[in-house]
Structures are given as C-alpha cells and as structure tokens.
C-alpha cells in the first residue's frame, strides 16, 4: 500500500532487490527468495516467498518492512536468499554463529536501512478521530501521507520511527553478499553514547516505579506468544512455557505466570538480542519490554565487551568463559 507512491530512495532499493532476486533465482543459486511484498492493509507489507524469477515484481521496499525475515531461516531446507535490514542481519549472524543456519546456504541481501515506522506511534501522532486509515503513500523521501475517513495528513517518518530504529547503531548491514542501495541511503547511525539514553533514564527511576511499569505492560499479555514466534532467536524446539512435565509455568490469572514467560524470554536472549523490535511490533497488545532487553544488552557490552551479531567468528557471550570475566555478582 505504501509502495504505489514510493519515490526516490526506497523505489531505487526495490528495483535493485528485484534485480538481485531475479538473478539469484534464474541462475539457480537459490531455491527461494524471501523479501517483502505489498500488504493487504494500509501501512503494511508482508513477507513474500518467491521461487520464480517472474515473481520478483512483487518485491517492495519501504518504511513498513517491519518483519525480521531471518525468523524463517532456521529449519528451512535448501538454499535461500533473504532481504535483511541492519538489525535483521545481526540476528542472522547470531543464527549462523549458533549453528542454526549454514552461512553457505544463504545469500544475504542487505538493505541500508532508513528505519521502520511504529504503527502505534503513528496512530498516536495522528490523534483521535483518525483511527481508520484507508490509505498511505510515500510522497517524498521520508514523508508519508496518511488518509482516512475525512482526513489527510503528511507525517515525517522521523517522527514515527520505532524506538529500536532511533537507537540503531548499525543501519547498514554488517555482513552481506549483496547490498541494495548505498550507505548514504541509510539513516545516520545513532552515536554509541546515545544508544542507551532512554534505558539510563528509565533505570534512574525507583524500583517500585520500574516494577509497576513492567507489570502494567505484562498485564495486557494475551499469551498468544507472537513475540516469541516473531523472534529469530526464539528457535527452541520446545519453549519452557510449553513444557508439561515438569510444568514450569501455570496458565492462570496470576500475573507472575505471564511475567515468568516474558522475563525468561528476555533473559534467554541476553547477549543475543539485537533490538530489531520484531517482538514488540508483533504484539497485538503493544507490550513494550524493550527497555529491559536493552538494559541487558548494555550490561553484556559493559561487562563482557560483547556486541551481538556483528562478528561471524565471535562466540556468544553465554557460550564461553574467560578467566577475567567479572564474577562479583555470583553469590
């Protein structure tokens, strides 16, 4: 829906993606190409699985390419080409390092990323009376015109980007086989010293206030597990919450059950989470635990000097041990 009016940079990227995909499929280097196609609703795109060069015209690129397509790779048979943003490829690097995906089986098609729109932020920016968006189109680079029942508004993308994108330190993919677009097309990377400013601000609040915030978020959980399913790093064959014997987590009204799931998931992705924001965007209740995950990311960086997903040879921080690792926290 966004693509029809796409202009300038994003249209160029889409054109380049189609060329790359058509080549890879025509030469038989890959069996399937995973990219984005136009969605069925305004402000939506949808993952597309292409197997024939003729299909590539379906591919699009815009500010609504919100899914992390690396999620489809573990367990996928055959050779695959995949479109990745700066964050997505870091999740893919993790999957390769953790031996869930073979590097040789995947053609990484990176896109220097301009960021992804947070639909909830957009709805808030539009305000009341603008709930029903009937169309959206990019009119110029970085501006989306949204129209609905009795209104039309131009919104600068910059104002409605996902929080993850605002703090993104790697908008240009760190690993790729092809790059669709040049570095200049990407958003300016967030300076490292600013990447944790919202986390630090939140951390400075009192423990009760922080707990109340997370409780309020988790209370809305409907236990659909969309966050887990949208996360490329949640690939466990059996999630701990699905375990029946022993049963770790109750399915009951108690907030603590939901909390155990969410906190368990955040801890399980410690040192691996790349803040792509896919979990938050997948959540039908808009639950936001990003601050918690981001704080853990910061701890892992400060304590162990590890930044996940930027190095194909770096061992995951919790899969290794060094004598000089800090141990003060061990009781």
């Amino acid at each position: 829906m966004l693509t029809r009016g796409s202009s300038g940079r994003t249209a160029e990227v889409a054109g380049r993606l189609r060329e790359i995909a058509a080549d890879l499929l025509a030469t038989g280097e890959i069996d399937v190409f995973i990219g984005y196609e136009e969605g069925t609703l305004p402000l939506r795109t949808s993952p597309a699985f292409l197997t024939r060069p003729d299909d590539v015209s379906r591919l699009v690129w815009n500010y609504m390419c919100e899914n992390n397509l690396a999620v489809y790779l573990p367990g996928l048979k055959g050779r695959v080409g995949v479109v990745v943003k700066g964050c997505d490829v870091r999740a893919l690097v993790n999957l390769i390092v953790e031996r869930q995906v073979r590097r040789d089986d995947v053609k990484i098609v990176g896109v220097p990323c301009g960021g992804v729109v947070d639909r909830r932020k957009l709805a808030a920016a539009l305000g009341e009376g603008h709930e029903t968006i009937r169309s959206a189109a990019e009119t110029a680079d970085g501006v989306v015109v949204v129209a609905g029942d009795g209104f039309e508004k131009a919104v600068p993308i910059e104002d409605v980007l996902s929080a993850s994108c605002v703090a993104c330190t790697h908008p240009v993919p760190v690993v790729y086989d092809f790059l669709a677009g040049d570095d200049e097309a990407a958003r300016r990377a967030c300076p490292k010293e600013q990447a944790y400013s919202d986390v630090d601000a939140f951390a400075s609040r009192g423990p009760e206030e922080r707990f109340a915030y997370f409780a309020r978020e988790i209370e809305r959980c409907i236990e659909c597990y969309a966050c887990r399913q949208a996360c490329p790093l949640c690939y466990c064959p059996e999630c701990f919450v699905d375990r029946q014997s022993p049963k770790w987590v109750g399915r009951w009204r108690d907030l603590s059950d939901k909390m155990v799931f969410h906190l368990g998931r955040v801890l399980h992705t410690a040192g691996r989470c790349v803040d792509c924001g896919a979990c938050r965007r997948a959540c039908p209740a808009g639950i936001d635990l990003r601050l918690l995950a981001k704080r853990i990311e910061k701890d892992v960086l400060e304590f162990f000097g590890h930044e996940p997903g930027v190095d194909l040879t770096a061992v995951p921080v919790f899969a290794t041990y060094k004598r000089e690792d800090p141990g003060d926290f061990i009781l």
Partner: protein
Amino acid sequence: MSRVRAGKRRGCSSGTGGRNVLRERVLRPRGELRMLEEGRPRKALVMTKRDLGRFVTHLAASYVVFVPVDEGGVTRFVAACPDGARGARSLEGDPFLSTRPLKELFFPQQETLFAFDAHGGIETAAGVKAPALGDDRGRARARDERLVSSPSDVVRVAFGARPCDARSLTLLDLVFDAADHRDPYYVSRRRETAVVTFACPEPGVACFCTSVGGGPFDETGSDVVFAEVGEAYLVRLLSAKGEDLIRGFEALREAGEAEFEASGEARARAEARMASRAVPVDAAVSRLEGAFGHPAWDDAYRKCLGCAVCTYLCPTCHCFDIGDEATRTGGERVRNWDSCMFPLFTLHASGHNPRPSRKERFRQRIMHKFNYFVENNGVVACVGCGRCVENCPVNLDVRKVLEAFAAL
C-alpha cells in the same frame, strides 16, 4: 410503537455468483442457530446522542454493564462503573471494534470449572464444589446487591458490541449450546446477558462481514441495535431482553419514516462500501471440500509464524484446554483458551504429533472454519470482523487465502 416490516431485513448477499445449493448451505444455517425471533413485533425508537451516556447510567442502576474500554492500547469489554460514568466516557464518539472479542464475556480466556481442597489428604480430595454457574464478578455483584429489578434473567448487558461480534455469539451457541452438549457455564452467561449492538456506518479496511453472511447492520445475535441517524440513534428492540432494557428510560420517542429512511440509506452506503471488496467465500468453501491434501497448502501457510493472535482474537474460535491449577492445600479445575496454531495442541503423550508442522496447523484453522464447521453446522465459523487480518504480525490475510482456494 411502529413495526419494522420483515421485508426490511436485508437478504444475504455474499457478492459472489448466483444462488446455488452451497450458497444456501453456507448462508442459511440449519439446526439450532438462533436467528432472532422471526415474526415477533419489533419496536423502533429514537434516542438522541446526548442521552447515550445517561442511558448507560440508567442501565448500570439495574444491570452490570460491560462497555468497550481502551486499556493501554487494548480495547475490551469491561464492567462500567456503577454510575455508568466510565461507560459513557468510552462511548463518546462511536464505539469501536474491541481488540479482544466479545466472546470473552461468555467464554473467558480463563475460568474455574470447580474448586477442590485436600483436607485429609490428596486421596480423599474432599470438598469438590461446583461454583454457581456462570459465577463471575458481574453476576455475583448483581445478585448480592440485589440490583436486579428486571423481571427477566438478564443481569448483564454487553453495551457497544459490533454486528459481527453479536453474530459470533449465535455461532458459539452451536458449539456450547447444542442439543447433545450444553455447556452450563456458557449457557448461563448467555441467558443472563443482553447484547446491545451499534451498527457500522463506516466498516473498517479489514472488514468482510458481508462475505460471510453478516452485514454492517446485521441484527443477528443482538437484543438491541443502535444505528446512527444524524444526531440521534434509531434504536431497534429485537427481543424481550431488549425491551426490558429501555423500561423506565423516558427520553425515547417512536421512530418515524424519516429515521427509517435515513438509517436505510446509511446501511446501503455501508454495504456498497463493502461490496467492492467482497471475498469469494462460497467458492472457497466449495473448493476446500476435498482439498485437504492439495499442494496449495504448501504456499498458503509459508509466512505463518505460528502464534495464536488469529485464534485468540477470533470471536468464533472456541477451542480450550482443561487443566488443574493446584496449591498446597487444594486447587481448581480450570479451562483456558487453546489454539490449534500451537504444536502442543495436538501433541500426544507418546510424543507423536499428528500436526507436526505449521502447515498442518494452519490448514486446520482454515479447514475448521470453512469446511468442518460448515459440514457440522451448515454455516462458516467466521463473521468477517477482520481482527485476524489487522493483528496478524505478518499480514497473512485470511481473505487472500480464501481467494487463493476459490481460484483453484
């Protein structure tokens, strides 16, 4: 009181093809689907928009009134404050389609079937006691405080439903209130709840109710339907339950031809708006018969992530799991929503899973709604509310899936 002619009811229009046997089957449910009491004199009144808040307050004096309330970005039906203030606030402007479906007032995500305690040891497990049927905050409060002045069984009002959600209740009735299996928890909640629906003059972008036998002004499953007419509502009373609700509320006048006409035009506009994006449901239903092993499933499911957004937010999905939540001294036998999209749904104790991958699980969801349910009940298990379309993390649109199968 003027009577609404039966002929005013819109015929079923799916927007596809001519009449055929299948169409009859899909759109004309057989068996127990409780259509409204046909032939019953129905009344139509007019209420100004200004009086809406006062009406909720009026209702809240006698009933527990549930209204759609936005709770941190999630809208759901919540009991309004006794003075109705909360309800009135949330109804300023048009009531919206709640994020969470109306079904949870009747079939909640979690409920206790009975409680037990273990005085004297686990073996004796004495004290098994069934709760008052349909026991929940709403009913308990109504009974305890003797708020009920209504002569009928109704103690709760779901106020601000949409026609799709109201219709979904009649589909759930087929499951939970059938001749050979009646679920007392569900049935009692249904019996004691009146449904007040607001027609949809401006259906949303994901809506497709007209393609599955409903409509933006559909009255199926509602006791009262409000339809906007300028600065007022045309209020149709469709059942005895509905008539009880307005008793004692004076600020109503009988509807005249002008209101009927205006509402009829709004309805025609809304339906026309939907006609342009009709989904070929009949054709899909007919192709799905025998399509269990079709290779089209290999493509249809691929982008599915395997979460339960579509099933949990669906107003007609009704699968559940029963388990025990034990404490040191007792526990509860509980019933929770379950989803066919989870591997655990069909995992056998042996470790074998007859639906081993997302493909089989995705197929199950589509087949249950558009094939098995039709087989069993003569109607598709979908009301076209569009929640699964709006909320799917990957925009896997059921309308597209149906189109793909219709085109096979």
